[in-house]
């Protein structure tokens, strides 16, 4: 049962006659020749309802082009399945540290999430709170803009301030500035040990205070999430086994005023993928606020269920269809994205910022042919 999803995913998978370029040059020629509009499709696991146009698939722009474990770098073409990247990294005991989420359960879609789709949506999971977002690990991009120009920015080295950082601009641009053809990442070593502590019975505001206490300690928690439905607050520690054991003990002591912690089998994939909302009817919102505003805001939005990640900085809310979460936010600083449901996907920006964003889109896609209308 997937109530509000806007369209069946099959509509977004490449069709027989869809555009499936096999090289950057071919892609450039196709874009130059098209009158548009074009709908960029990676794995199609997160279709966006309002986008119309011919499907442009990145499926044939696939493959890892470089993995240098000693330099912690990986370069891959945009259509490469995330699963392939994770498997390759695993052979060297490495991983994508920002923990990209798998949307298939929540969205009721099938298909293979691609690394280009992850970058286009700047997808980051629970570890974002300690190590940073997808954009923080992205070292370089290659893309073809809306006029067919082939452009590169950044590179494959960890420190690079040569010219403007268009890499960040493209992370989370949802394909509105260009079609990504290749992305390069800083990757991190996988860890020897992981453990999760849980506190139970806390109300939302108290849970957020507990999460803040952990995040404000030197003991390096790498995931802090609260699920009000079960009244469970989770704290994840990762690293070398002895260090994890030591820090778990210290975190327990630190959290004593909030109750006794228990060792649990933390299901961070479920937290990451918000599987608790999968198959439940209603709109799904993803709200970014500062943690200390989160509990009060949750009360105001009239959700059927909420889940907190990032120490409270990220609220996932399952709301009755048509709920206006943004109106409820009022002056609370932050933004709300409608991940599942019919309505405006992205939080409207203040006029001066909207003008800049519109200006940038007009420069990179002067004819307005790429993913037109996704971001406004």
């Amino acid at each position: 049962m997937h109530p509000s999803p806007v369209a069946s995913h099959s509509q977004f998978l490449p069709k027989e006659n869809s555009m499936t370029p096999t090289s950057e040059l071919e892609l450039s020629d196709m874009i130059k020749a098209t009158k548009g509009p074009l709908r960029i499709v990676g794995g199609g696991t997160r279709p966006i309802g309002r986008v119309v146009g011919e499907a442009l698939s990145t499926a044939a722009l696939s493959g890892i082009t470089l993995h240098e474990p000693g330099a912690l770098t990986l370069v891959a073409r945009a259509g490469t399945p995330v699963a392939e990247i994770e498997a390759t990294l695993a052979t060297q005991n490495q991983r994508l540290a920002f923990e990209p989420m798998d949307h298939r359960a929540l969205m009721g879609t099938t298909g293979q999430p691609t690394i280009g789709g992850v970058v286009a949506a700047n997808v980051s999971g629970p570890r974002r709170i300690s190590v940073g977002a997808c954009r923080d690990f992205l070292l370089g991009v290659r893309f073809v803009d809306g006029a067919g120009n082939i452009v590169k920015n950044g590179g494959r080295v960890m420190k690079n301030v040569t010219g403007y950082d268009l890499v960040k601009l493209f992370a989370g641009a949802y394909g509105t500035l260009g079609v990504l053809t290749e992305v390069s990442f800083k990757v991190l070593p996988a860890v020897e040990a992981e453990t999760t502590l849980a506190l139970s019975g806390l109300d939302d505001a108290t849970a957020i205070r507990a999460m803040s206490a952990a995040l404000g300690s030197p003991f390096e928690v790498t995931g802090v999430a609260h699920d009000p439905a079960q009244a469970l607050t989770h704290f994840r520690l990762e690293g070398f086994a002895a260090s994890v054991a030591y820090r778990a003990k210290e975190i327990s002591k630190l959290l004593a005023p909030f109750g006794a912690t228990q060792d649990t089998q933390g299901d961070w994939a479920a937290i990451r993928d918000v599987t608790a909302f999968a198959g439940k009817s209603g709109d799904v919102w993803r709200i970014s606020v500062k943690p200390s505003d989160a509990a009060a805001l949750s009360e105001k939005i009239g959700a059927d269920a909420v889940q907190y990640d990032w120490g409270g900085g990220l609220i996932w809310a399952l709301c009755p269809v048509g709920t206006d979460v943004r109106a409820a936010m009022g002056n609370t600083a932050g933004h709300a994205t409608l991940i599942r449901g019919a309505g405006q996907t992205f939080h409207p920006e203040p006029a001066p910022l909207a003008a800049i964003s519109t200006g940038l889109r007009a420069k990179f896609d002067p004819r307005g042919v790429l993913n037109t209308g996704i971001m406004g």
Partner: protein
Amino acid sequence: MQMPIPDASVIDRKDQIVARLLAVLPKTAVIADVVETRAYECDGLTAYRCPPMCAVLPTTTDEVAAVLRICHEMDVPVVPRGSGTSLAGGALPTADCVILGVAKMNGVIETNYDDRYIRVQTGRTNLSVTGAVEADGFFYAPDPSSQLACAIAGNIAMNSGGAHCLKYGVTTNNLMGVTMVMMDGTVVEIGGAHMDAGGLDLLGVICGSEGQLGVVTEATLRILPKPEGARPVLMGYDSSEVAGQVVTDIIKAGVLPVAIEFMDRPCIEATENFAHAGYPMCEALLIVEVEGSDAEIDAQLALIMKIAAKHNPVELREAKDADEAGRIWLGRKSAFGAMGQINDYMCLDGTIPVSELPYVLRRISEMSKEFGLDVGNVFHAGDGNMHPLILFDANKEGDLELCEEFGAEILKLCVEVGGCLTGEHGVGIEKRDLMHVQFSKADLEAQMAVKDVFDPKWLLNAAKVFPLDASEPRRVA
């Protein structure tokens, strides 16, 4: 170094412009006297100097907006300035410009430990941001060596790094929001205490834009709890190949040190003569620092020492206490000063893939012989950010030019092996004309298109970053 011909039609209107500025700023905040403007004639790249037409030192965002509105209306170029420590000439004035210095705007606006951020005015120095929170057990992670002097304004504009960014990232990874004044005087708020952008990641492109997109007046910065402790080890090797392999092996082993610093023989010799840190005389010296509790540090260092020992070190020294730790860092921290004792030097900043380290070091020493100029290498090895220091004599005819030529060859080499021209210092004027080496015409057009949107008249710091021939159609339009 070529600079655009100053616009006489601006300089001719100096009196009018100054009068307008005086109408929106206190008298002491406008510096128009030709002697006093000399204080702003250069930044850390002292080889190039040019006093500005005038300088202003506003104290509020509103004053900044008022200044920019006037300059926009009167078509006056503006060069933003923090503390003037740029090594790339980023804050170098043009003769027809207004220097807009934010040094007087150095307050703390808000600290929030629950949500782990601090909001400051951008004239505040990097070190005093940490100073404002360290009593409460927090710190601001990016730590450029210039942190005592440089301002958050310049850090944001250059996306500055530091010795500890292997673990904590550079400025862009620790910047959450800014208040910025656009060239036309519009004040925009971007990001804030919450995470990630709602729309396009404008913050990401503003960071590192070298003062060309707007004047940043306030910033929200991520602060972190201080680690329980930190400790370095020192290791010496007979060849840079082996040292490079040690770096790779440590990284592959899954330890994430906060810093891995590298020095070569010329640099070791210079610092030994200067600081007497007791370093071994060898081809390559590494300093590796890890953090955590005492037991965690012991465990990580044991692993690192095991890897280090496998590669036949000439010396392996673990700091037992703060005193020994201080001595291990002493030489590294005085490296620039030590090289400066020998002669004038130019500090390069290219980054290379770590695997190319031995090859690049070998090529640099070969080129050093060809050019007849000595080079010392000291750099952040963990992330491949090199700092070759080329020695030259500023008083010797043609030596600066020779040194610049040599520097350009090294940077071209960095790009050739898959790296870039600058890892943390920025392009400024210094690497401006080498941008063609790294970028195609389309690559540069895409970047300049961003400036077109933020600053359509190309009034903000326009003679920097982009090769003059590439930016000319826009600058003179």
